[in-house]
Protein backbone atom coordinates (compact mmCIF):
# COMPACT_ATOMS: atom_id res chain seq x y z
CA UNK A 1 0.00 0.00 0.00
CA UNK A 2 1.08 3.52 -0.76
CA UNK A 3 0.43 6.10 1.90
CA UNK A 4 1.39 9.45 3.31
CA UNK A 5 4.00 9.56 6.04
CA UNK A 6 1.54 10.39 8.78
CA UNK A 7 -2.11 9.55 8.44
CA UNK A 8 -4.57 11.61 10.39
CA UNK A 9 -8.21 12.48 10.24
CA UNK A 10 -8.94 14.91 7.46
CA UNK A 11 -10.04 18.42 8.16
CA UNK A 12 -11.32 21.19 5.93
CA UNK A 13 -8.78 23.76 4.86
CA UNK A 14 -8.92 27.02 2.97
CA UNK A 15 -7.17 27.18 -0.41
CA UNK A 16 -6.46 30.27 -2.45
CA UNK A 17 -7.20 30.24 -6.17
CA UNK A 18 -3.99 31.29 -7.94
CA UNK A 19 -5.15 30.71 -11.52
CA UNK A 20 -8.47 30.02 -13.21
CA UNK A 21 -8.17 29.21 -16.91
CA UNK A 22 -10.65 27.89 -19.44
CA UNK A 23 -8.95 24.96 -21.16
CA UNK A 24 -11.74 23.63 -23.42
CA UNK A 25 -15.32 24.74 -24.14
CA UNK A 26 -16.53 22.77 -21.09
CA UNK A 27 -13.50 22.40 -18.80
CA UNK A 28 -11.53 24.80 -16.66
CA UNK A 29 -8.18 24.31 -14.95
CA UNK A 30 -8.18 25.74 -11.44
CA UNK A 31 -4.83 26.14 -9.66
CA UNK A 32 -4.81 26.31 -5.87
CA UNK A 33 -2.30 27.38 -3.27
CA UNK A 34 -2.77 25.19 -0.20
CA UNK A 35 -0.58 23.44 2.37
CA UNK A 36 -1.58 19.80 2.03
CA UNK A 37 1.88 18.29 2.09
CA UNK A 38 2.94 15.96 -0.70
CA UNK A 39 0.16 14.21 -2.55
CA UNK A 40 0.36 11.11 -4.71
CA UNK A 41 -0.52 11.09 -8.41
CA UNK A 42 -4.08 9.77 -8.68
CA UNK A 43 -5.28 11.14 -5.35
CA UNK A 44 -8.23 13.50 -5.14
CA UNK A 45 -9.62 16.20 -2.89
CA UNK A 46 -13.13 17.10 -1.79
CA UNK A 47 -14.35 20.65 -2.41
CA UNK A 48 -17.08 22.09 -0.17
CA UNK A 49 -19.31 25.04 -0.95
CA UNK A 50 -21.45 26.69 1.73
CA UNK A 51 -24.49 28.81 0.83
CA UNK A 52 -25.47 31.86 2.87
CA UNK A 53 -28.23 29.82 4.56
CA UNK A 54 -25.71 27.21 5.70
CA UNK A 55 -26.57 24.59 3.05
CA UNK A 56 -23.44 22.73 2.02
CA UNK A 57 -22.54 20.72 -1.08
CA UNK A 58 -19.34 18.77 -1.63
CA UNK A 59 -17.78 17.07 -4.63
CA UNK A 60 -14.61 15.09 -5.30
CA UNK A 61 -12.07 16.27 -7.87
CA UNK A 62 -8.91 14.47 -8.94
CA UNK A 63 -5.65 16.35 -8.55
CA UNK A 64 -4.36 17.10 -12.07
CA UNK A 65 -0.87 18.34 -11.15
CA UNK A 66 2.10 16.32 -9.92
CA UNK A 67 3.40 16.66 -6.36
CA UNK A 68 6.56 18.14 -7.90
CA UNK A 69 4.58 21.09 -9.28
CA UNK A 70 3.97 24.29 -7.38
CA UNK A 71 0.18 24.37 -7.36
CA UNK A 72 -2.55 21.83 -6.73
CA UNK A 73 -4.57 21.89 -9.94
CA UNK A 74 -8.08 20.62 -10.65
CA UNK A 75 -9.84 20.10 -13.96
CA UNK A 76 -13.49 21.04 -13.52
CA UNK A 77 -16.04 20.14 -16.17
CA UNK A 78 -19.07 22.43 -16.17
CA UNK A 79 -22.23 20.36 -15.75
CA UNK A 80 -25.16 22.59 -16.72
CA UNK A 81 -27.45 21.09 -14.06
CA UNK A 82 -24.65 20.77 -11.52
CA UNK A 83 -24.81 22.08 -7.97
CA UNK A 84 -21.09 22.74 -7.58
CA UNK A 85 -19.32 22.91 -10.96
CA UNK A 86 -21.09 26.02 -12.40
CA UNK A 87 -19.96 27.97 -9.34
CA UNK A 88 -16.38 26.75 -9.74
CA UNK A 89 -16.27 27.50 -13.48
CA UNK A 90 -18.38 30.67 -13.75
CA UNK A 91 -18.12 32.51 -10.43
CA UNK A 92 -14.76 31.62 -8.94
CA UNK A 93 -11.83 33.93 -9.74
CA UNK A 94 -8.11 34.05 -9.04
CA UNK A 95 -7.66 35.39 -5.52
CA UNK A 96 -10.84 33.77 -4.19
CA UNK A 97 -10.76 31.16 -1.43
CA UNK A 98 -12.46 27.76 -1.39
CA UNK A 99 -12.69 24.99 1.20
CA UNK A 100 -11.18 21.60 0.54
CA UNK A 101 -9.98 18.47 2.32
CA UNK A 102 -7.39 15.96 1.22
CA UNK A 103 -5.33 14.51 -0.26
CA UNK A 104 -7.53 11.41 -0.35
CA UNK A 105 -6.92 7.89 -1.63
CA UNK A 106 -4.18 5.26 -1.81
CA UNK A 107 -5.80 2.74 -4.13
CA UNK A 108 -6.13 4.68 -7.39
CA UNK A 109 -2.53 5.88 -7.22
CA UNK A 110 0.61 5.42 -9.29
CA UNK A 111 4.07 6.69 -8.52
CA UNK A 112 7.43 6.04 -10.13
CA UNK A 113 8.45 3.49 -7.48
CA UNK A 114 5.66 1.17 -8.62
CA UNK A 115 7.27 0.82 -12.07
CA UNK A 116 5.51 -0.25 -15.21
CA UNK A 117 4.12 -0.96 -17.63
CA UNK A 118 1.13 1.24 -16.88
CA UNK A 119 -1.98 1.61 -19.02
CA UNK A 120 -4.16 4.65 -18.39
CA UNK A 121 -7.65 4.86 -19.93
CA UNK A 122 -9.63 8.10 -19.68
CA UNK A 123 -13.10 9.23 -20.69
CA UNK A 124 -13.48 13.02 -20.91
CA UNK A 125 -12.41 14.88 -17.76
CA UNK A 126 -11.39 11.49 -16.33
CA UNK A 127 -7.99 12.33 -17.78
CA UNK A 128 -7.31 14.63 -14.78
CA UNK A 129 -5.53 12.12 -12.49
CA UNK A 130 -3.53 10.87 -15.46
CA UNK A 131 -2.19 14.38 -16.13
CA UNK A 132 -0.71 14.20 -12.61
CA UNK A 133 0.77 10.74 -13.30
CA UNK A 134 2.33 11.92 -16.59
CA UNK A 135 3.87 15.01 -14.97
CA UNK A 136 5.19 12.90 -12.10
CA UNK A 137 6.59 10.31 -14.55
CA UNK A 138 8.60 13.11 -16.18
CA UNK A 139 9.63 14.89 -12.96
CA UNK A 140 10.79 11.63 -11.37
CA UNK A 141 12.71 10.59 -14.49
CA UNK A 142 10.83 7.29 -14.52
CA UNK A 143 11.65 4.79 -17.25
CA UNK A 144 8.37 2.91 -16.74
CA UNK A 145 6.35 2.47 -19.91
CA UNK A 146 3.26 4.67 -19.60
CA UNK A 147 0.49 4.50 -22.18
CA UNK A 148 -2.63 6.69 -22.22
CA UNK A 149 -5.78 5.94 -24.20
CA UNK A 150 -7.97 9.03 -23.96
CA UNK A 151 -11.49 9.41 -25.33
CA UNK A 152 -12.69 12.97 -26.03
CA UNK A 153 -15.75 14.18 -27.91
CA UNK A 154 -14.04 16.47 -30.41
CA UNK A 155 -10.61 17.98 -30.92
CA UNK A 156 -11.60 21.14 -29.00
CA UNK A 157 -12.51 18.99 -25.99
CA UNK A 158 -9.03 17.53 -25.53
CA UNK A 159 -7.88 18.66 -22.09
CA UNK A 160 -4.25 19.82 -21.65
CA UNK A 161 -3.67 19.23 -25.36
CA UNK A 162 -0.28 20.93 -25.52
CA UNK A 163 1.14 19.06 -22.55
CA UNK A 164 -0.14 15.76 -23.91
CA UNK A 165 1.59 16.48 -27.24
CA UNK A 166 4.81 17.19 -25.34
CA UNK A 167 4.51 14.03 -23.23
CA UNK A 168 3.98 12.04 -26.43
CA UNK A 169 7.50 13.01 -27.53
CA UNK A 170 9.10 11.50 -24.41
CA UNK A 171 10.66 8.04 -24.41
CA UNK A 172 8.41 5.40 -22.89
CA UNK A 173 5.24 7.50 -23.16
CA UNK A 174 2.44 6.83 -25.62
CA UNK A 175 -0.57 9.15 -25.98
CA UNK A 176 -3.42 7.70 -27.99
CA UNK A 177 -6.48 9.96 -28.39
CA UNK A 178 -9.80 8.91 -29.87
CA UNK A 179 -12.51 11.39 -30.88
CA UNK A 180 -16.07 10.14 -30.52
CA UNK A 181 -18.26 12.84 -32.11
CA UNK A 182 -16.33 14.65 -34.76
CA UNK A 183 -12.80 14.59 -36.07
CA UNK A 184 -11.22 17.32 -38.19
CA UNK A 185 -9.78 16.68 -41.63
CA UNK A 186 -6.28 15.33 -41.29
CA UNK A 187 -6.84 13.98 -37.72
CA UNK A 188 -4.18 11.35 -37.17
CA UNK A 189 -5.51 9.85 -33.97
CA UNK A 190 -8.28 7.33 -33.50
CA UNK A 191 -11.95 7.89 -34.24
CA UNK A 192 -14.89 6.32 -32.39
CA UNK A 193 -15.87 5.14 -28.94
CA UNK A 194 -13.63 2.96 -26.82
CA UNK A 195 -14.99 -0.55 -27.31
CA UNK A 196 -13.64 -4.07 -26.94
CA UNK A 197 -12.03 -4.00 -30.39
CA UNK A 198 -10.25 -0.70 -29.74
CA UNK A 199 -9.08 -1.92 -26.31
CA UNK A 200 -7.68 -5.11 -27.84
CA UNK A 201 -5.70 -3.02 -30.30
CA UNK A 202 -4.65 0.00 -28.21
CA UNK A 203 -4.07 -1.32 -24.69
CA UNK A 204 -0.86 -2.93 -23.43
CA UNK A 205 -1.77 -6.65 -23.65
CA UNK A 206 -2.55 -8.69 -20.55
CA UNK A 207 0.48 -10.88 -21.30
CA UNK A 208 2.71 -7.91 -20.38
CA UNK A 209 0.84 -7.56 -17.06
CA UNK A 210 0.25 -3.80 -17.09
CA UNK A 211 -1.18 -1.97 -14.11
CA UNK A 212 -4.38 -0.49 -15.50
CA UNK A 213 -6.20 2.65 -14.36
CA UNK A 214 -9.59 3.62 -15.79
CA UNK A 215 -11.24 6.95 -14.98
CA UNK A 216 -14.27 8.73 -16.40
CA UNK A 217 -18.07 8.62 -16.46
CA UNK A 218 -19.57 5.57 -14.74
CA UNK A 219 -20.86 3.89 -17.93
CA UNK A 220 -17.50 4.39 -19.65
CA UNK A 221 -15.49 3.02 -16.72
CA UNK A 222 -17.67 -0.03 -16.16
CA UNK A 223 -17.78 -0.87 -19.89
CA UNK A 224 -14.01 -0.61 -20.23
CA UNK A 225 -13.26 -2.55 -17.04
CA UNK A 226 -15.58 -5.38 -18.04
CA UNK A 227 -14.03 -5.63 -21.52
CA UNK A 228 -10.49 -5.63 -20.11
CA UNK A 229 -11.25 -8.47 -17.71
CA UNK A 230 -12.80 -10.39 -20.61
CA UNK A 231 -9.52 -9.84 -22.49
CA UNK A 232 -7.54 -11.50 -19.72
CA UNK A 233 -6.49 -8.61 -17.48
CA UNK A 234 -6.72 -9.67 -13.83
CA UNK A 235 -9.59 -7.85 -12.06
CA UNK A 236 -7.22 -6.85 -9.24
CA UNK A 237 -4.90 -4.89 -11.57
CA UNK A 238 -7.73 -2.98 -13.26
CA UNK A 239 -8.32 -0.03 -10.93
CA UNK A 240 -11.28 2.21 -11.55
CA UNK A 241 -12.56 5.61 -10.52
CA UNK A 242 -16.07 6.67 -11.52
CA UNK A 243 -17.11 10.28 -12.01
CA UNK A 244 -20.87 9.55 -12.22
CA UNK A 245 -23.31 10.14 -15.05
Amino acid sequence: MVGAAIQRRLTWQVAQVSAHVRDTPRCWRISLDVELGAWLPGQHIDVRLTASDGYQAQRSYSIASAPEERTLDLVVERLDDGEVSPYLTDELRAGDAIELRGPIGGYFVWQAGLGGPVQLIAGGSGVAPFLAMLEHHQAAGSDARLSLLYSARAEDDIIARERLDEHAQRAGVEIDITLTREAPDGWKGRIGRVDAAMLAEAVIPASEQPQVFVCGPTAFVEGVAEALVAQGHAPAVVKTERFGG
Partner: protein
Amino acid sequence: MDHIAAHRLDGNAAAGRLEDVFAVEITSVRATCNGCGATAAVAELTVYADAPGTVIRCPSCEAVVMRLAQVPGSTWIDLRGARTLQIPLR
Protein backbone atom coordinates in the same frame (compact mmCIF):
# COMPACT_ATOMS: atom_id res chain seq x y z
CA MET B 1 -27.61 1.95 -18.19
CA ASP B 2 -30.51 3.49 -16.29
CA HIS B 3 -30.53 6.85 -14.54
CA ILE B 4 -29.67 5.47 -11.10
CA ALA B 5 -26.90 3.22 -12.40
CA ALA B 6 -25.35 6.14 -14.29
CA HIS B 7 -25.00 8.01 -10.99
CA ARG B 8 -23.23 5.10 -9.34
CA LEU B 9 -19.84 6.08 -7.94
CA ASP B 10 -17.22 4.04 -6.11
CA GLY B 11 -15.58 4.06 -2.72
CA ASN B 12 -13.14 6.78 -3.80
CA ALA B 13 -16.07 9.20 -3.68
CA ALA B 14 -16.91 8.32 -0.05
CA ALA B 15 -13.31 8.33 1.19
CA GLY B 16 -13.24 11.97 2.29
CA ARG B 17 -16.35 11.52 4.41
CA LEU B 18 -14.91 8.36 5.97
CA GLU B 19 -11.52 9.99 6.63
CA ASP B 20 -13.33 12.73 8.55
CA VAL B 21 -13.67 9.94 11.10
CA PHE B 22 -11.11 7.19 10.43
CA ALA B 23 -7.44 8.14 10.69
CA VAL B 24 -6.36 5.61 8.06
CA GLU B 25 -6.13 5.62 4.28
CA ILE B 26 -9.60 4.21 3.78
CA THR B 27 -9.71 3.32 0.07
CA SER B 28 -7.21 0.48 0.60
CA VAL B 29 -9.11 -0.93 3.61
CA ARG B 30 -10.72 -4.26 2.70
CA ALA B 31 -14.37 -4.77 3.64
CA THR B 32 -16.16 -8.10 3.80
CA CYS B 33 -19.84 -8.00 2.91
CA ASN B 34 -22.06 -9.43 5.62
CA GLY B 35 -24.53 -10.54 2.96
CA CYS B 36 -22.46 -12.65 0.58
CA GLY B 37 -19.04 -12.76 2.21
CA ALA B 38 -17.24 -11.17 -0.74
CA THR B 39 -14.24 -8.99 0.13
CA ALA B 40 -13.26 -5.84 -1.73
CA ALA B 41 -11.20 -2.71 -1.19
CA VAL B 42 -13.36 0.23 -0.12
CA ALA B 43 -12.38 1.90 -3.43
CA GLU B 44 -14.09 -0.99 -5.24
CA LEU B 45 -17.40 -0.73 -3.37
CA THR B 46 -20.25 0.98 -5.18
CA VAL B 47 -21.46 4.28 -3.80
CA TYR B 48 -24.74 6.11 -4.24
CA ALA B 49 -24.26 9.67 -3.07
CA ASP B 50 -27.52 11.18 -4.35
CA ALA B 51 -29.53 9.99 -1.36
CA PRO B 52 -29.77 12.22 1.74
CA GLY B 53 -26.95 10.08 3.08
CA THR B 54 -24.25 8.06 1.35
CA VAL B 55 -25.06 4.41 0.66
CA ILE B 56 -22.15 2.05 0.05
CA ARG B 57 -22.94 -1.33 -1.49
CA CYS B 58 -21.19 -4.61 -2.20
CA PRO B 59 -20.07 -4.84 -5.86
CA SER B 60 -20.81 -8.60 -5.85
CA CYS B 61 -24.32 -8.83 -4.34
CA GLU B 62 -25.40 -5.18 -4.00
CA ALA B 63 -26.18 -5.52 -0.30
CA VAL B 64 -25.64 -2.37 1.77
CA VAL B 65 -22.19 -2.54 3.41
CA MET B 66 -22.10 0.91 5.01
CA ARG B 67 -24.31 3.95 5.30
CA LEU B 68 -23.18 7.43 6.24
CA ALA B 69 -25.30 10.37 7.21
CA GLN B 70 -24.05 13.82 8.09
CA VAL B 71 -26.12 16.06 10.30
CA PRO B 72 -24.98 19.36 11.80
CA GLY B 73 -22.19 18.54 14.22
CA SER B 74 -22.06 14.76 13.68
CA THR B 75 -21.53 11.93 11.27
CA TRP B 76 -23.56 8.73 11.68
CA ILE B 77 -22.07 5.52 10.35
CA ASP B 78 -24.03 2.26 10.03
CA LEU B 79 -21.63 -0.67 9.60
CA ARG B 80 -24.13 -3.53 9.99
CA GLY B 81 -23.42 -4.69 6.45
CA ALA B 82 -19.66 -4.95 6.95
CA ARG B 83 -18.70 -8.26 8.56
CA THR B 84 -15.10 -7.09 8.92
CA LEU B 85 -12.84 -4.22 7.95
CA GLN B 86 -9.22 -5.23 7.37
CA ILE B 87 -7.01 -2.20 7.92
CA PRO B 88 -3.39 -2.32 6.69
CA LEU B 89 -1.00 -1.14 9.41
CA ARG B 90 2.32 0.45 8.56
